[in-house]
């Protein structure tokens, strides 16, 4: 340390008691545990001095759960470490995954949670979740092309709300508003995702935002820097006091959220982001960017540290060069601020004039904040005073915990359906209008799906203003190529809550089928795992089971896991959320001209089920709706899935498949109805051939790897030849506009498409 540094604020930790250290951690909002504080004490004893306040804050950022994954890293490495990369170019290495798209291009993808900020300031929290994920894709040098988001809310229908947390209905409206305003203003289509409701999300809503981008293979920018002599340029938004301590906050459980948490909330500014995207991509195009990282959780502290550590270099930073929103910010505040819309680039100083020209053209502010040097120590100065001088490896690597985990024995519960027959029509009307099962139009219609003009399959399919839900969306990212990217995201969290292993396989299977149903071949996976408190061995058990299921599925189906995110401490007053492994899956559509959508196309076609039959109601939406419990979840057969994928995509490529929809939430009946809802075309179906189970089980079971298909009758024979060796069952045909279901010659259901659609389409009207 230099002499001048003695005028900095030193934090007295040498020789202090563990109890004192813990109190210090709390009073400085560091979020570090007693053991971690002792590790710091030992380090500074080794170098013979007390730390500065900047050093303490930097350590707290770097060692937070959010930045170093200390609770999950051990298990993530164990389960994802040895997975094959397949088409992936960068898997789990940089800020986002990069996968080959064709000979010249690669696509970039990532999904991240923004749960904790969204719980206390849902509009800003959700908006900055979108903003942050765009930067993750942008910093690989990629043009962002589409957004996805999976959002989970509490009981929005609750009338009374006595808790101190925000009402789930307010959270729903604000989160959707934040995603809408940010995505629409920045000019990216929001094309896929999921919306779910469950009481376990009452105080801990989940917001998982994903982004996908496209980049020329020779234009990929890495998230590290390895060239001493390069300079660091910080561009985009200014640095302010917003978002200080966000990551420490995400590493602790949310007790009672109140105004006191203000400093952790950031508000986004898409009006700055849009030109920033252009400026950054233009700089990438002229090949002057040597390394790039976005500023997210942990701010400059984590971006500079991680970029240098991965590149085996060190840096010298001058904090007074950082452009500020408000004067008189303290050095540690500048260093860890999580203000939005900022990008950190490493460039050769000779290229600075060119960079200036580009950034001035787009009216983007920037400043040179430091340079890359050889060595092991990161040195930070403020007006010439050294305020941080630490070994990068110690600073950035962070502790790794091998936390204990426990997989509890499950009580065996078998559901017992009432013996008498249901009034199916009455049940179905109520089921379809339930918020969990109804149409998501009130939400999805707020998002722009087609800006950029490359959306081939939108999240809504069918007649304009009379659509149905799509399975996966398809984007055509490269002008000169007819290849498409099929995108889906979601989770079968109710099944995961019953059995994390089988439920995660169900989640993976649904994502896989969603992609397949559009005629595309699944190609890569990103996971976003949302859990409760990891200090509870049962929660760690969920992480272990979920990770092992994702890993097993990907090994059997030859898919790479290219990026991931773990969000922990999603709990309130000791109650954890249901575990949610949210899976984003991307597939390749060989030719978008043959992309398949979910809506029935014409009367008189054949309807087939492809795949293995299933009649268990375990983990189904119907059981939840009826208030029944079951300890079993259908087991999905990965070999079967692998066997149908190739022939199915080839069949789709012939153009023979008019419509396809996978069977998942709500079972066969919901899938059939949704195919009708998009066009108003009805169906006449007989259930006798499906299985010997009870009618209600055949209609609502969510098991099996099944896809419903519409094929023109004149193509029946050719279709069967194409799918030779795969279990296919013809269950009926489409008609003008009525719905008729029979089972063993008995009538089961009669009605018109419109009366069922009416129940389904208005389910959320009272809440958003």
């Amino acid at each position: 340390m230099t002499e001048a540094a003695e005028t900095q604020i030193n934090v007295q930790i040498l020789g202090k008691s563990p109890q004192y250290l813990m109190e210090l951690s709390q009073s400085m909002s560091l979020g570090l545990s007693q053991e971690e504080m002792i590790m710091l004490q030992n380090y500074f004893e080794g170098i013979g001095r007390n730390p500065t306040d900047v050093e303490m804050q930097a350590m707290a950022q770097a060692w937070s759960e959010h930045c170093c994954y200390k609770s999950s890293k051990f298990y993530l490495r164990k389960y994802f470490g040895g997975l094959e990369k397949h088409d992936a170019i960068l898997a789990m290495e940089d800020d986002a995954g990069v996968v080959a798209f064709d000979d010249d291009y690669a696509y970039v993808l990532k999904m991240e949670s923004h749960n904790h900020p969204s719980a206390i300031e849902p509009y800003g929290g959700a908006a900055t979740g979108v903003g942050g994920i765009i930067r993750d894709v942008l910093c690989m040098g990629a043009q962002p092309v589409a957004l996805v988001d999976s959002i989970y809310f509490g009981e929005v229908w609750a009338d009374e709300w006595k808790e101190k947390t925000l009402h789930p209905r307010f959270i729903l409206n604000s989160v959707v508003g934040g995603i809408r305003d940010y995505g629409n203003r920045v000019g990216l289509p929001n094309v896929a995702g999921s919306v779910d409701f469950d009481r376990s999300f009452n105080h801990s809503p989940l917001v998982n935002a994903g982004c996908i981008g496209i980049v020329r293979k020779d234009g990929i920018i890495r998230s590290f820097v390895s060239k001493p002599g390069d300079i660091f340029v910080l561009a985009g938004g200014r640095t302010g006091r917003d978002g200080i301590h966000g990551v420490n906050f995400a590493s602790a459980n949310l007790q009672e959220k109140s105004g006191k948490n203000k400093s952790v909330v950031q508000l986004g500014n898409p009006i700055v982001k849009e030109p920033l995207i252009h400026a950054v991509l233009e700089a990438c195009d002229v090949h002057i960017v040597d390394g790039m990282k976005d500023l997210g959780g942990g701010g400059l502290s984590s971006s500079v540290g991680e970029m240098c550590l991965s590149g085996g270099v060190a840096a010298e930073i001058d904090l007074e060069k950082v452009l500020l929103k408000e004067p008189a910010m303290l050095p540690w505040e500048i260093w860890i601020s999580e203000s939005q819309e900022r990008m950190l680039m490493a460039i050769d100083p000779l290229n600075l004039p060119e960079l200036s020209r580009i950034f001035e053209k787009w009216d983007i502010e920037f400043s040179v904040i430091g340079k890359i040097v050889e060595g092991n120590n990161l040195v930070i100065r403020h007006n010439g005073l050294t305020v941080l001088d630490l070994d990068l490896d110690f600073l950035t690597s962070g502790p790794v915990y091998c936390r204990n985990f426990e997989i509890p024995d499950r009580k065996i519960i078998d559901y017992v359906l009432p013996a008498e027959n249901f009034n199916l029509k009455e049940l179905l009307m109520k089921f379809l209008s339930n918020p969990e099962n109804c149409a998501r139009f009130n939400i999805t219609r707020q998002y722009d799906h087609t800006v950029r003009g490359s959306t081939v399959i939108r999240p809504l399919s069918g007649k304009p203003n009379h659509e149905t839900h799509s399975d996966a969306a398809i984007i055509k990212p490269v002008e000169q190529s007819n290849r498409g990217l099929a995108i889906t995201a979601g989770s079968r969290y109710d099944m995961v809550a019953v059995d994390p292993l089988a439920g995660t396989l169900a989640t993976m299977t649904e994502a896989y089928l969603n992609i397949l149903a559009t005629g595309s071949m699944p190609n890569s996976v990103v996971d976003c795992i949302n859990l409760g408190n990891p200090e509870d061995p049962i929660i760690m058990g969920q992480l272990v089971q979920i990770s092992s299921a994702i890993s097993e599925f990907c090994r059997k189906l030859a898919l790479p896991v290219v990026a991931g995110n773990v969000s922990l401490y999603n709990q309130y007053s000791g109650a954890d959320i249901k575990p949610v492994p949210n899976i984003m899956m991307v597939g390749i559509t060989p030719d978008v001209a043959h992309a398949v959508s979910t809506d029935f196309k014409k009367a008189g076609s054949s309807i087939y089920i492809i795949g293995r039959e299933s009649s268990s109601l375990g983990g189904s939406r119907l059981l939840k709706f009826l208030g029944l419990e079951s300890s079993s979840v259908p087991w999905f057969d990965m070999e079967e899935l692998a066997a149908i994928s190739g022939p199915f995509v080839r069949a789709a490529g012939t153009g023979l498949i008019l419509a396809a929809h996978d069977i998942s939430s709500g079972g066969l009946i919901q899938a059939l109805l949704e195919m009708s809802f998009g066009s108003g075309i009805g169906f006449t179906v007989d259930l006798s051939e499906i299985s010997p189970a009870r009618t209600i089980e055949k209609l609502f079971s969510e098991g099996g790897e099944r896809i419903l298909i519409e094929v023109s009758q004149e193509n029946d024979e050719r279709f069967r030849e194409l799918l030779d060796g795969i279990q296919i069952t013809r269950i009926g045909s489409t008609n003008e506009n009525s719905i008729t279901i029979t089972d063993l010659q008995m009538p089961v259901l009669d009605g018109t498409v419109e009366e069922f659609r009416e129940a389904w389409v208005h389910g959320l009207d009272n809440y958003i």
Partner: protein
Amino acid sequence: MPVVVIKVEYLPGVEDPEALTILKNLNILGYGGVKSVQTSKSYQLNVQGSEAEAKKIAEDVAEKILTNPVIQKYSIRILKK
């Protein structure tokens, strides 16, 4: 009937994108003298009862549905006829 005005604005330090965009454009248009812009929203309520009762109701409304204390603050004033 008292008329109550509730003014809702951002807390200091919270980014105000709308204000920043306006400021930027004012500078482009040549109003270099404008150094900062802040936005706020005001709600006008006609409330039955005394001034004190009206103020109490306005506070309740502001806290329950008009503001999020994490990013916003409010002030209340009674309009004199």
